[in-house]
């Protein structure tokens, strides 16, 4: 586990608890961008990402005592963020937001390829929206965040074996959409 399990997280959390505000800033700097991408992938609209990330950090810092370092801090943050997005979705009682309308289309030399890429991403997002919540979160923690199965299991309160099964099912369902 290398991409997500940053070695300094435990020390940074301990430093923050001891009164070092700089440690909190470093944690936000380290995990903010990935968290933003994750909550967007689980359904937050681009215009809401900042608020969701801010609220995720707030809730996480309020209960830092419950994070003991056995699971990945980023995975833990992602789970809190996903719960926030899910709660917001329930409040609105609407479909999962998978809009890409807020995104500015970049200038490219090959607009056709860009359109195809957009369509593929749209299909992927729609596919993710159609997955059961646990499959979606396991898949994103593994594929997007690079977490290993042990950390995924500890973060989501399941077993590594169950996490592998969820991932395998998610891959099977999504492969057809992306290919």
């Amino acid at each position: 586990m290398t991409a997500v399990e940053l070695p300094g997280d435990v020390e940074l959390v301990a430093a923050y608890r001891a009164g070092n505000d700089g440690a909190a800033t470093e944690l936000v700097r380290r995990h903010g961008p990935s968290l933003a991408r994750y909550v967007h992938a689980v359904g937050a609209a681009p215009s809401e990402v900042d608020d969701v990330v801010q609220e995720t950090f707030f809730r996480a810092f309020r209960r830092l005592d419950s994070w003991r370092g056995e699971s990945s801090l980023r995975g833990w943050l992602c789970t809190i963020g996903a719960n926030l997005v899910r709660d917001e979705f329930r409040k609105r009682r609407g479909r999962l937001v998978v809009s890409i309308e807020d995104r500015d289309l970049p200038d490219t030399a090959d607009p056709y390829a860009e359109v195809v890429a957009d369509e593929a991403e749209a299909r992927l997002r729609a596919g993710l929206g159609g997955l059961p919540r646990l499959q979606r979160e396991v898949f994103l923690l593994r594929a997007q965040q690079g977490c290993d199965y042990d950390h995924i299991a500890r973060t989501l309160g399941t077993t590594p074996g169950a996490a592998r099964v969820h991932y395998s099912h998610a891959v099977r369902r999504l492969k057809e959409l992306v290919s």
Partner: protein
Amino acid sequence: MSDCDRLSERMPLVAAGSEEWSAAESAHLATCAACRDEWKLLVATRGLGSEVVLRASPDVMAATLLARLRQVEQEDRRRRRALAAGTWGGLALVATTLLVVMLRAPEPTTAAGGDSVQVAVAAAPFEIGLPELDGAEREELQAVLDALDAPLAESTTLDGGATDGVETEDLERVLRAWEG
């Protein structure tokens, strides 16, 4: 573990750029459609949301976060103080109420010049079993009571005036019962 399973295990690390495919793994990818599809899916997912950028810089976000945490902690402290004050106030109110109730409890009546022990005794129901009187006639009982009620100056056990109507034997029986 099959070749496909081994590649699947390694895909997130290679997609993150922290590891590379070996020559054998690259060769497998070139020939295995299932692994190629999974790899494409992983790369697409890895890039998902790459255009999403936080509007606030991490420093600004952290400063906002810390300010909010401090505010909430202050509110928590105020709430705890108010709760503690309310708890002590409530206990004081209960104690005061109990004290008032105890101080205002009705006092039993006392005989003139009597002390607290006699008052307690006088207030309690007072019964003495006198089986010797069980067989006495009504007139005999009344005579005994009259003798007891008569002022001391008017009666004496010597002259027996108040007990004229009572047979001597009955009176002696009563006196013996009283004297034990």
